[in-house]
């Protein structure tokens, strides 16, 4: 399949993620949208890796390693993020980020 398909797909996924982050108010959903962005990147990473491998680049595998790192970091972020959201939820009983404006005043 041409690499363009992958680009379109992952850019679409990425944009969905971005829009979700910008428009949703639920912290968990925002967080899931962020994960969606990361996975869009992963997808594109692998697609490009294949593309460059077909083009004869020697170190095209690097992108696949990169995907692993993104996964690890995403996992670390999930861990920290879940902890933060749980902490927040225990104090406010809500995960709506509209509540997060105490600091404004």
């Amino acid at each position, binding site marked *: 399949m041409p690499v363009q398909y992958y680009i379109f797909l992952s850019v679409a996924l990425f944009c969905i993620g971005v829009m979700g982050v910008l428009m949703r108010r639920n912290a968990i959903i925002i967080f899931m949208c962020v994960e969606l962005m990361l996975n869009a990147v992963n997808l594109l990473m692998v697609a490009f890796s294949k593309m460059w491998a077909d083009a004869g680049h020697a170190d095209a595998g690097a992108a696949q390693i990169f995907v692993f790192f993104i*996964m690890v970091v995403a996992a670390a972020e999930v*861990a920290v993020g*879940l902890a933060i959201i749980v902490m927040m939820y225990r104090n406010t009983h809500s995960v709506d980020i509209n509540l997060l404006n105490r600091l404004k005043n």
Partner: protein
Amino acid sequence: MFLSSALLAATNTPFSYFPIVLQLGAAVGFVALTMLATHFLGPKRKTSDKLINFESGIEQKGNARQPVAIKYFLTAILFVLFDVEVIFFYPYAVNFRGLGWEGFWAMLMFVGAFLAGFIYIIRKGALKWED
């Protein structure tokens, strides 16, 4: 059709997953059919008493969806972290003959880090369920 036999025989092309898709279709069909069947076959004599949640026969109190022990979240979080580390072992395991001793020492370092985190959380009491 573009499914040539050579493609289908190979184990590392997207098309080798095609049967899995087939199986998924079959499974979904089966589950959906059964669900529908049971929906239409069973009797429907609903009363409000029947539809309240079971609480060992006493009055229902409040909502079940309350914050639960933090331990469960902790387990989930730890799982995410350690599972990813486990996933890291797989590519190594597949290639480890090729990587030889050098790879082994590198992995030993990785295991060291893994163990360090592991011992830390155990000592920290993250896995204590007794209290």
